[in-house]
């Protein structure tokens, strides 16, 4: 009896926590189809009485979600791919090629980047982008995003590549492959599971990034989703129903990705111990 009680006490506490996590999303979801602020104010907790789906249409148009969405999507994807190419080449050289004295040193230099607080480097990078005339182009995000995720990616990929048996190179060499061939045709295919994890984590990091995107781009048509949403909030904060629809647009894609790939995402994020 007491055991049962204890078991259910744990579930009650966890359910309360779950409610705290999920209710804000539900609140926004309900608010997004309510007619106006008054309807939200009168019935904040409940299901909407009338559904105003046009909030979604108007938010899509007013908040230019489609523009921001596409900007975010292609910047996040391309930067993540660029990181993976660079980091996997470096990880291959560091773990598989026979430079056993040099490699640990170079590895240390690369992962030093994890210890450096990103914010502290924002000003020099801003200046670098300005002096190369890249401010206010998407290059101003693509290049720093790709570079900033290198240390984390190298940590994960070297750990994975180290665990591959050394016989694979020997066999490949006997078959006449040289290092680029071994990299592209032997090691990379075997590394796919780690590459997928690293790609998703970097993609999410790029997708959610706010500070660089906020300060490096001023042209509206170039902005990414988080920055665009903040601008929309500042302009339309009086209409909370429409703002909620905007929030739904920016939260749903990430939720869908998370729902499908949550194991890999949790694995990757907690392995790197990286924070937004």
């Amino acid at each position: 009896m007491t055991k049962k009680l204890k078991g259910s006490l744990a579930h009650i506490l966890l359910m309360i926590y779950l409610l705290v996590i999920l209710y804000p999303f539900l609140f926004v979801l309900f608010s997004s189809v309510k007619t106006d602020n008054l309807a939200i104010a009168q019935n904040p907790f409940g299901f909407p009485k009338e559904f105003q789906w046009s909030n979604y249409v108007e938010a899509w148009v007013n908040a230019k979600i489609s523009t921001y969405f596409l900007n975010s999507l292609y910047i996040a994807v391309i930067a993540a791919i660029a990181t993976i190419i660079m980091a996997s080449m470096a990880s291959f050289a560091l773990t598989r090629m026979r430079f056993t004295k040099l490699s640990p040193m170079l590895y240390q230099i690369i992962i030093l980047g994890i210890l450096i607080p990103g914010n502290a480097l924002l000003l020099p990078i801003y200046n670098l982008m300005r002096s190369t005339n890249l401010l206010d182009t998407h290059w101003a995000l693509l290049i720093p995003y790709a570079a900033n995720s290198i240390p984390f990616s190298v940590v994960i990929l070297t750990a994975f590549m180290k665990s591959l048996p050394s016989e694979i190179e020997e066999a490949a060499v006997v078959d006449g492959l040289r290092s680029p061939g071994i990299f592209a045709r032997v090691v990379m295919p075997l590394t796919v599971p780690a590459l997928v994890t690293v790609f998703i984590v970097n993609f999410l990091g790029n997708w959610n990034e706010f500070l660089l995107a906020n300060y490096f781009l001023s042209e509206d048509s170039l902005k990414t989703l988080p920055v665009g949403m903040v601008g929309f909030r500042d302009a339309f904060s009086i209409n909370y129903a429409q703002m909620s629809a905007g929030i739904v647009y920016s939260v749903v894609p990430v939720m869908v990705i998370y729902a499908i790939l949550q194991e890999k995402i949790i694995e990757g994020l907690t392995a790197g111990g990286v924070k937004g």
Partner: protein
Amino acid sequence: MNKAMRSPLMYALFLIPTFVGIVLFFIYPVANAAFYSFTDWNGIAKTYNFTGLANYTKSMSQNAFWVSVKNNGFFILFSVFIQVPLIILFSLLIANVKKLKGLYKTAVFMPSVMSTAVIGILWGFIYEPDIGLFNHVLGLFGIDKVYWLSDRNWAMISILITNAWQWTGFYIVMVLAAIISIPKELDEAAMIDGATGFQRAMRITMPLIMPIVSVVIMLSIAGAMKAADIIIVMTKGGPAGSTEVMATYMLKHSITSFKYGYGNSIAVLIFIFTLIITALYQVLVVRRTERIEY
């Protein structure tokens, strides 16, 4: 054999792209920030003067700077003394339930993959004085309206709650993984000896997860030093500078008001503070972690 995997040329070609990135976006910026922190450069002009430690002494004499340091301190204290106990409690609870374990784990982690900017907007709505969720809940208990984000006394704590909402689950999953990896025999042996659930949690699980808890503390301190986007989105440092942290203070005084040298001295201070914490972490945590054996 050796030839294929020992070609210096190939080795260099594989590493060059990464090192170009590391040099341009980590090494150069650190050096650049350190260098200009000793100058009065405005970020645009062709000339600048060396001013020694003037930027550093200036920041130290600014009340607003100390407010931002204090707020970083709040962030750290809140993380360590409020968030960490909750993280341990909920990790133990999730580890010990039989049903719905997967649901709890998946759901609590979810906010950590969301954009901080969008979460800032979402919570701004929840804190909205007239139609937001919080004041409605308080209203049910007959408590007066609170202007969460525009009241100096409440703005910082409102941001800390939002930050905790976003990241607590992230750390719970880390601690949970550590608890699950503890061999079951230890717990079973204690159970046979007649230890209660609470005793087992305190005497067996807790000591064994201390290394990961130390990592969590370290990460949340580092996170507290980094926090900037959530503040920019929710309060822009206001009301009257009461939610400014070092990173937002730096941004305000550099990009927006062209004090590049001064801004970089703040960047260096953030860097030094974080470095000290990292060094402490190496000494206090990493060594201890290596000693744990089952």
